[in-house]
């Protein structure tokens, strides 16, 4: 299945949780925030939130800014 991750098509082997996605991307859940289909997902829901085909996912973190 294919999701859109940070604006780009991204292939997944099948339905996975956000926790699993972060793990596969080697991202620390405590340093990021995630939006799925325009809705922010609470960090405590990463383990229970399963991605579906065509989901739009944004994973953000803090960068330098003014």
């Amino acid at each position, binding site marked *: 299945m294919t999701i859109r991750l*940070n*604006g780009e098509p991204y292939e997944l082997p099948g339905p996975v949780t956000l926790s699993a996605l972060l793990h596969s991307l080697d991202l620390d859940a405590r*340093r990021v*925030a995630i939006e799925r289909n325009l809705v*922010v997902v609470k960090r405590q829901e990463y383990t229970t939130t399963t991605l579906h085909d065509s989901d739009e996912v944004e994973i953000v*973190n*803090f960068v*330098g*800014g*003014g």
Partner: protein
Amino acid sequence: MADPLVIAGKTFRSRLIVGTGKYPSPAVMADAHVASATEMVTVAVRRVNLTDRSQPSLLDAIDRDRIFILPNTAGCYTAEDAIRTARLGREVGLSNWVKLEVIGDERTLFPDNVALLEATRVLVAEGFVVLPYTNDDPVACRRLEEAGAAAVMPLGAPIGSGLGIQNPNNIRIIKDQARVPVIVDAGVGTASDAAIAMELGADGVLMNTAIALAQDPVAMASAMKLAVEAGRLAFLAGRIPRREYASASSPAIGLIGALSPSERSGAGVGPRVTERASGGAAFAKASAPGAGGPGDKS
């Protein structure tokens, strides 16, 4: 704590808010933050770089025991994008504060005050502490305050321009009417600009480029710390009124060569006043040996 800055019930000893962008390196940024003595820094919310994971985390270069993180919505051109970005920034989990930017023009980066007001209302209703970056417009600032902004942050000049406070009178008016803190955000180029903002009565100054792109960012951070403190002290001290002409600082009485009170009343003798009044020639005559002028009186 003497003269703290209080925003939404949170107390800051420093009135200088600093950015985290554009520094030569994370180490220089960290040193500049120390030199500035800032207790609040802004950060931007951006997509994680999924292809290059070599970049260190920004948060590792910020002393979070001492420095409060203020996520911004920089780069957002609609209320919707700014709201989404603010929600994501909150979910990172460091605070429910947001420096709210909704940009209306690419070249000037001036705010879109209509969208800004709309986003402020939405985010305040969601429990955010909203610090909107706005024009130096007293009416816009009043509307934002009415919408629940915890502070208003009028620009001094376009972001990154270093032009200094372009409309000092508006900043003064904004401060005069505001019941929330006024933070001058953007436009500062050097220390005197920050001092002027504070002398106008601003409660704080927010800057990034002026420090980060200075030739020596750490030294400039120190300069800005001092400038903000100096400007604040000058504001509290109460400056003198401006006047068109001079007002001598030294006493006008007791000048040598002037008439004593008894002389002025006619009891004295001598041509001193006449000679002084004639200026340089009289002085030359008086100075000549044996000329018999006032200098020879002894």
